[in-house]
C-alpha cells in the first residue's frame, strides 16, 4: 500500500503541517522511503464527507445514474460515504436489493455505499417492509426511509419508529402531508400565485414534522427529518430538541442558497421536492445549521435523464444533482468555518448513519485516512457538461462557486487526485 505525505496541509484551517498516510491510516512517524509527496500548500484537509441522502438510481434508472457513476460523482465532490436512498426499481425493500446495492458499491470501490432500506413494502405506505432482515443483511441497514414519499399514516409511522429500536435503526422521514400537496408544483406563496403553479404549502411539511417528533417522543425512538425546507419546520425542531426528543435533521445545499423566485423561468431544473422556498426560509435554515438545530447538510442528489427535465414544468421530475457542488455551496453560505463544515458534512452524518470509519479526527494518529483536500481559494464556474455524474440537472449552471476538491482518500487510497477521479 502506497504511503503519502501531504506537505503543508491545513487541518480544518489550522497552521500548515505535513500529514503522513500509511497503511490506510494517519501516521505520526516519518513516511519512509517511497512515499508519494503531495504538495498540499494552501489546501485544507477535511474528514471525508458523508452524504445521508443520495439517489443512485440503480437498479432501475441506470440511464440517469448508476452506483458506479454516482460513486464517482461523490468522490469528485469530496465524499467518502453515501447513503443510497431506497426508491429504486425494484424498491430497496428486501435484504436482496439492499445487498445488491451494497455489493455494487464495493465493486465500484470509490466511496462506501451504505444502502437505506424502505420503511414500507414498495414505498406504498401500507405495510412494513422486512426491516429486521435488511438490518441483519450484509448491507447492515440502519437508516430506513420511504423518501420520495411520506410515511403519512400515523399508526404505521409509530410502529416503524418503535420497531427499529430493536437494532438501533432510525426512520428518515420525507415530511410531506400528501393531502396538502396534491398536484403541487412549487412553494405556495406569491410566486406560485403569479406563475399559476399549484402551491406546495410550508404547513404540509411542518405538520408532519410536528406529528413525528411527538410520535418519536412518545415511543422514545430516533427520528431523522430529511431535507428540512421551511422556517416553520426549524421552529418545530428547535422546540423538540429543547425538550430532549431524539430527532436529527438535514438540509440540502440548494435550500441554503436558492429561492422560489427561480421558478419564474419555468425551467424545471429548479423543480425539486421539497420545493425551493423563500428568502426568509433560507435565512432560517442557515441559522439553524449554525445553531445545530439542523445537524447535517445532505445533498438529496437526484439525477434525472434529459427528457425528464427538458419539458413542461408540471411534467418534469423533481430533483437536482448535488454531490459535486455541495461543499462549494456550503462554503459560499457559511464561509470558511471548517470546524462547523466538518461537523455538519462529515461527523454528524457519520454518527447518524452509524458509519464508524468516517468522520474521524485527522489530527489523531491511527485514524482512518479517509479525508478530502480542498483548495478554498479556487473559484469554479459550474458547467453541466463537466459533471462526473451521468446526469446534468444542476441548478448552478453558470454560477461561480468557491472551493475545489483537489483530492479524496478512502482508507489511505486516493479516489480523487488533482481534481480527477482516479478510475
Amino acid at each position: 500500500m502506497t504511503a503519502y505525505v501531504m506537505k503543508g496541509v491545513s487541518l480544518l484551517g489550522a497552521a500548515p503541517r505535513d500529514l503522513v498516510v500509511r497503511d490506510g491510516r494517519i501516521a505520526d512517524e516519518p513516511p519512509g522511503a517511497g512515499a508519494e509527496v503531495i504538495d498540499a500548500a494552501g489546501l485544507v484537509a477535511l474528514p471525508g464527507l458523508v452524504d445521508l441522502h443520495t439517489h443512485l438510481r440503480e437498479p432501475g434508472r441506470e440511464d440517469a445514474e448508476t452506483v458506479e457513476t454516482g460513486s464517482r460523482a461523490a468522490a469528485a465532490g469530496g465524499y467518502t460515504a453515501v447513503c443510497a436512498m431506497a426508491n429504486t426499481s425494484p424498491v430497496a425493500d428486501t435484504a436482496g436489493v439492499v445487498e445488491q446495492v451494497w455489493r455494487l458499491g464495493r465493486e465500484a470501490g470509490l466511496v462506501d455505499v451504505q444502502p437505506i432500506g424502505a420503511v414500507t413494502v414498495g414505498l406504498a405506505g401500507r405495510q412494513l417492509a422486512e426491516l429486521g432482515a435488511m438490518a441483519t443483511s450484509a448491507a447492515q441497514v440502519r437508516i430506513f426511509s420511504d423518501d420520495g414519499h411520506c410515511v403519512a399514516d400515523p399508526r404505521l409511522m409509530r410502529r416503524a419508529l418503535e420497531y427499529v429500536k430493536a437494532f438501533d435503526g432510525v426512520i428518515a422521514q420525507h415530511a410531506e402531508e400528501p393531502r396538502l400537496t396534491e398536484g403541487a408544483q412549487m412553494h405556495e406563496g406569491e410566486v406560485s400565485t403569479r406563475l399559476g403553479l399549484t402551491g406546495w404549502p410550508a404547513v404540509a411539511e411542518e405538520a408532519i414534522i410536528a406529528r413525528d417528533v411527538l410520535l418519536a417522543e412518545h415511543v422514545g425512538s430516533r427520528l431523522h427529518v430529511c431535507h428540512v425546507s421551511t422556517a416553520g419546520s426549524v421552529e418545530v425542531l428547535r422546540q423538540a430538541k429543547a425538550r430532549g426528543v431524539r430527532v436529527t435533521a438535514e438540509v440540502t445545499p440548494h435550500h441554503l442558497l436558492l429561492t422560489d423566485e427561480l421558478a419564474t423561468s419555468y425551467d424545471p431544473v429548479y423543480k425539486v421536492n421539497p420545493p425551493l422556498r423563500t428568502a426568509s426560509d433560507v435565512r432560517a435554515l442557515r441559522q439553524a445549521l449554525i445553531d445545530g438545530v439542523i445537524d447535517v447538510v445532505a445533498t438529496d442528489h437526484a439525477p434525472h435523464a434529459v427528457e425528464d427535465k427538458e419539458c413542461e414544468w408540471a411534467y418534469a421530475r423533481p430533483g437536482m444533482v448535488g454531490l459535486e457542488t455541495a461543499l462549494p455551496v456550503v462554503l459560499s453560505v457559511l464561509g470558511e468555518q471548517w470546524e462547523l463544515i466538518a461537523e455538519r458534512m462529515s461527523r454528524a452524518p457519520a454518527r447518524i448513519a452509524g458509519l464508524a470509519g468516517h468522520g474521524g479526527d485527522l489530527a489523531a494518529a491511527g485514524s482512518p485516512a479517509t479525508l478530502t483536500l480542498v483548495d478554498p481559494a479556487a473559484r469554479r464556474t459550474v458547467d453541466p457538461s463537466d459533471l462526473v455524474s451521468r446526469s446534468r440537472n444542476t441548478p448552478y449552471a453558470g454560477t461561480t462557486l468557491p472551493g475545489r476538491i483537489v483530492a479524496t482518500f478512502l482508507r489511505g487510497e486516493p479516489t480523487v487526485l488533482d481534481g480527477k477521479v482516479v478510475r
Partner: protein
Amino acid sequence: MIKHLRSAADLDAETATLILDTAAEMATLAGREVKKLPTLRGRTVVNLFYEDSTRTRISFEAAAKRLSADVINFSAKGSSVSKGESLKDTALTLQAMGADAVVIRHPASGAPHRLASWVDGSVVNAGDGTHEHPTQALLDAYTMRSRLGRLDGLRVAIVGDVLHSRVARSNVLLLSTLGAQVTLVGPPTLIPIDVAAGLSGDASRRGDRLVPGEAAGGPSAPAGSAGGDEPRAVSPAAIAGLSGDASRRGDRLVPGGVAGAAGGGPAVSYDLDSVLPDSDVVMMLRVQSERMQDSYFPSAREYSRRYGLDMRRLRRLPEHAIVMHPGPMNRGMEIAPEVADSPRSTIVEQVANGVSARMAVLYLLLGGK
C-alpha cells in the same frame, strides 16, 4: 416591440396602449367588404393547441387570415406526457418549418415560456394551464375602453374562481398596468395566497429577497462569496421573519370589505354585494361545479347564492356599469341567464373584439408593415 406575448406582464403601458389602438384600427376592417390586409403575406402562423378550445383557435385563425398569413393548425391534444412527441421535439419541427409565430394553448402553466426558449419565432400565449391568457385580457381591456371610454381609474371587480383562472391573472396584470383598480371577489378558498403581492405589476413591491453578498457565516465568511454570488437567488414573500407570524400567509385584507391594494396589486373582498355599488365593470369568471368535490365550496347552490350575479345584484351596480364574462358561461351558476342576456352584458362584443385584438398582437409582434 416585444418579441413574445407569454404574459400580460410582458406589456408596459405604452405597448399595451399601442396594441389597443391598433386593435381599434383593425376593427374598422370588419365593417368593410374586403376584410383582409396584405400585411403578413408569406408569413407563417402556427396554432399549436394542446387543449380543445375551438373559440380561441378560430379567433386566432381568423385574425391571422385577415392579415393574409399562412395558417397551420396543429392540434396536439392528448399527446402530452407519456405518449407522442415532446413539446421540445414539436418545437424543433415548427422551427424547421420556419414558423414566424406560434400561438400555443397548453394545459401546463409556463409551456409558452419553455417553447420560446426552443424556437426563433414569436410565441403567443393562448392560455397556459392556470397561469395566463394575455390576449383575453387585451380584448377585455379593449371592450372596457370602447364601452366606458377609458381604463385609467376604472374600478373592475373580477369575481369567482381566481385561483384556477388564467383570465383573472392576465386581467389583473394588464389592468393594473393601464391604471385600473382591480378587486378580486370570491370565497377565500378560491383566492390565491399572497395575491396582492404576487400579482403586483411593480416588482419592487413584492416581498423579501436575499441580498447579494448576504452570508450566514459571520465574520469568517469571505466577502462577496456568499449567496450573493448567485444572482438568481432572489425571492419574494415573507416580509415577516419566521413562519410563526401569521401575516406571512394569505392576503392582508379587510374582512368583508375592499382591502387597500398596497403596491399596485389587486384588492380582495369576500363580499360581492359590498363591492358592486363601487364597480364600473364586473367580470364574472367561469366556475366549474366540480370544484365542490375538492371542498372549495359546499355546493353549486351555495356558490351561486353568495357569488352568482343575478338580477337583484345587477341592480346594485351603478347605471353605467357593464357585465363581462370570458366564456364559456355556466348559466345559473356564476351568472343568471337574464343577466347574461341583458344590455349591460358585453359577452357577444367580447368575441368580436377578440379577433381585432389578436390581429393587433400578430401585426405588431411580426413587425407588420
